[in-house]
């Protein structure tokens, strides 16, 4: 057996004309510039009329070689690159690298840092899911949802801006702590946001979830069974919607998640509707987590290492992961003992989730493709890295 290397041209073989009276299949290029691409994702569809026969994703339009860049930066400098992978859960990406480095270097993190990290990460999860909700609405034609979600994102963005100084690419969670301490009125402001977001999630339900058109569009569409989801390496809400309760916050609690009571939300069938509603419920669970943690943030320093000390990992292989808004972000570091990683690899959730469309989309229509892709909640820079 030998390895046969192919090119895209080998895959895109024009279907033969089936003869008179039959329908001819054709290729349709969806992206890289397409409203559904949410960035630059090219998906080639083989269609029969409007029915999808085959899906060929062609990622790579936002590939920046972050892993190569990381090999030239020290462990503190890597953090800012992770902001730019899954920009909607930048803090959780920061946390993934910080956690791996801390565990490898043996840096003990105090409770205050862990609690602040958890609260911030959960705030961002709400923000990320809110944006996803709006984008799903927009993809399915309800543009108003998009603007409502952006309005709510701003509210959370403002608290980030106040504590961290940035809204999107924050570089906040660093090995050994967090960049800034919280402000004294942080708890009050967050509580206000939570009570506001609670109302807004209800509103999301009124505007879209309850809407019969949306339910018709999502229910029963694009079913991903549990065994396939596991084999495909799907994680996060996509896997949980298929009925498997794999949530790192619960399975191997990190941060302050152990201190909080919350449920892992799972779906029953794994269709688009489950993926939709799992995320809506997760917003509620995130609100729950923050509510439990916000009142007693322990005292202590917010940075346990000095910024200018070099972090050196003992030689070895380190793998650690956190649950981002999209799934499991794993960080694999191979260290040769220096202050820079010899090899650093990100197991990004969107990259693995994306390939589920190749399995679940065939047989559905173009319009369902939109719903399926939206419900997977892909962030293209996270796929391409």
């Amino acid at each position, binding site marked *: 057996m030998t390895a046969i290397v192919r090119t895209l041209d080998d895959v895109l073989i024009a279907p033969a004309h089936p003869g008179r009276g039959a329908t001819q299949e054709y290729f349709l290029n969806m992206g890289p510039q397409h409203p559904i691409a949410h960035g630059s994702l090219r998906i080639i569809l083989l269609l029969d009329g409007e029915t999808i026969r085959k899906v060929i994703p062609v990622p790579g339009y936002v590939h920046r070689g972050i892993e190569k860049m990381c090999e030239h930066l020290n462990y503190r400098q890597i953090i800012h690159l992770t902001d730019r992978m899954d920009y909607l859960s930048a803090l959780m990406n920061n946390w993934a690298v910080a956690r791996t480095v801390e565990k490898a270097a043996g840096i003990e993190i105090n409770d205050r840092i862990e609690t602040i990290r958890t609260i911030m990460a959960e705030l961002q999860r709400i923000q990320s899911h809110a944006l996803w909700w709006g984008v799903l*609405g927009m993809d399915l*034609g*309800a543009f108003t949802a998009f*603007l409502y979600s952006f309005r709510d994102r701003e509210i959370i963005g403002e608290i980030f801006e106040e504590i961290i100084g940035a809204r999107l690419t924050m570089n906040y969670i660093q090995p050994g702590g967090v960049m800034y301490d919280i402000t004294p009125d942080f708890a009050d402001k967050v509580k206000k946001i939570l009570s506001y977001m609670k109302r807004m999630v209800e509103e999301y339900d009124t505007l879209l979830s309850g809407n019969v058109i949306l339910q018709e*569009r999502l229910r029963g569409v694009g079913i991903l069974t549990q065994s396939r989801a596991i084999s495909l390496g799907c994680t996060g809400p996509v896997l949980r919607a298929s009925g498997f309760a794999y949530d790192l916050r619960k399975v191997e609690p990190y941060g302050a998640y152990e201190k909080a009571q919350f449920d892992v939300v799972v779906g029953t069938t794994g269709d688009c509707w489950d993926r939709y509603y799992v995320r809506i419920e997760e917003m509620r669970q995130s609100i729950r987590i923050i509510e439990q943690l916000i009142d007693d943030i322990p005292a202590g320093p917010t940075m346990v290492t000095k910024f200018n000390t070099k972090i050196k990992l003992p030689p070895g292989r380190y793998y650690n992961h956190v649950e981002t808004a999209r799934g499991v972000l794993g960080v694999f570091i191979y260290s040769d003992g220096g202050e820079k990683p010899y090899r650093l690899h990100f197991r990004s959730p969107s990259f693995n989730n994306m390939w589920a469309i190749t399995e679940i989309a065939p047989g559905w229509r173009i319009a369902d493709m939109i719903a399926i892709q939206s419900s997977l909640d892909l962030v293209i820079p996270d796929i391409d890295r």
Partner: protein
Amino acid sequence: MDFIYSMTTCTAAADVITLADRAAAAVDTNIWLSILYMVLALVGIGALTAVLGVVLIYAERKIAGHFQCRLGPMRVGPHGILQTVADTLKLLLKEDVVPASADKAMHFAAPLMSLMATVLVLGVIPYSPILQVTDVNIGILYVTAVSGLGVMGILLGGWSSNNKWSLVGGMRAAAQMISYEISATLSVLVMVLFAGTLSLSGIVQSQESGWWIWRAHGTGLVAFVIFIIASTAEINRTPFDIPEGESELTGGFHTEYSGLRFAFFFLSEFINMFAASAIAATLFLGGWMPFYIEGFETFNKITSLIPPALWFLGKTAFLIFIFMWFRWTFPRLRVDQLMRLEWKILLPIGFINLIAAAVIVLTKFYFFPV
């Protein structure tokens, strides 16, 4: 001069005199007056198209903005009132890109056809007793026929662009608009049964003692709802905007259109919305008839003081607002769901409604006096 005079003083009870009537009457006595009326009609329809385009697009953006907690256009002119003018200028100045492998003639003709079909409808709508270009005695049939032509423009545009997205959009449009035409026509027929005439002016005048939506023993209300749903589909607006479906088909049939040609498609969409609202107002909401309540003479007198043209515009504007409200609330249906809604739900209801209306009219079994 009597034309101007009657325009200001006309009441609901006045006799209907269309511009065509005036031109015909003047043909023997004063040919120039006749020509003046014809020119007036042409210019009037042209101006109406342009003004409607500007106003409706502005209204759409402003209303969309307020639905979405935004302000809408605010930059060009006070409260962005000149935004549409600026956009029109932009579209006029833009390069007219035609795909190399497009069918040039069809590609050119499609937007014109689309706009023509909608503008032709404007000619028979009774805006007020004396503001109507011509009152065809088969008016509503003419409206149905002409608006059916619009699908040809969209289909041609989708086909001639030689783009797969456009083709899919065009095919979706054809399937959708032809299907929903049936439901729209069925609900129109109910009104024709009650009014006993196909003339639009005749239908308006038949509602002197009350609007059909109330008076038709429930069948009017059902027909109204069906008509609104069907015309939403016919004018390609959310939740039935699948021929465009900008997040699915990147613009559908007008993917390959730019500049002025795109403006034509855009304009025809908005004129279409006005036409559909105007027809609905005419058929179900009494057209230019004021709102009367039996027995409340003072109230009726007050409502008669409002000019009929304003009544008509008010009703039409209300319906247009409803269309916009739909658009900025609902997600879009899928192609097969759309067909299911039409063939399995709307069409049977429409038929039953028509039969019910026919039975009521035939047996004269009125629950309350018509």
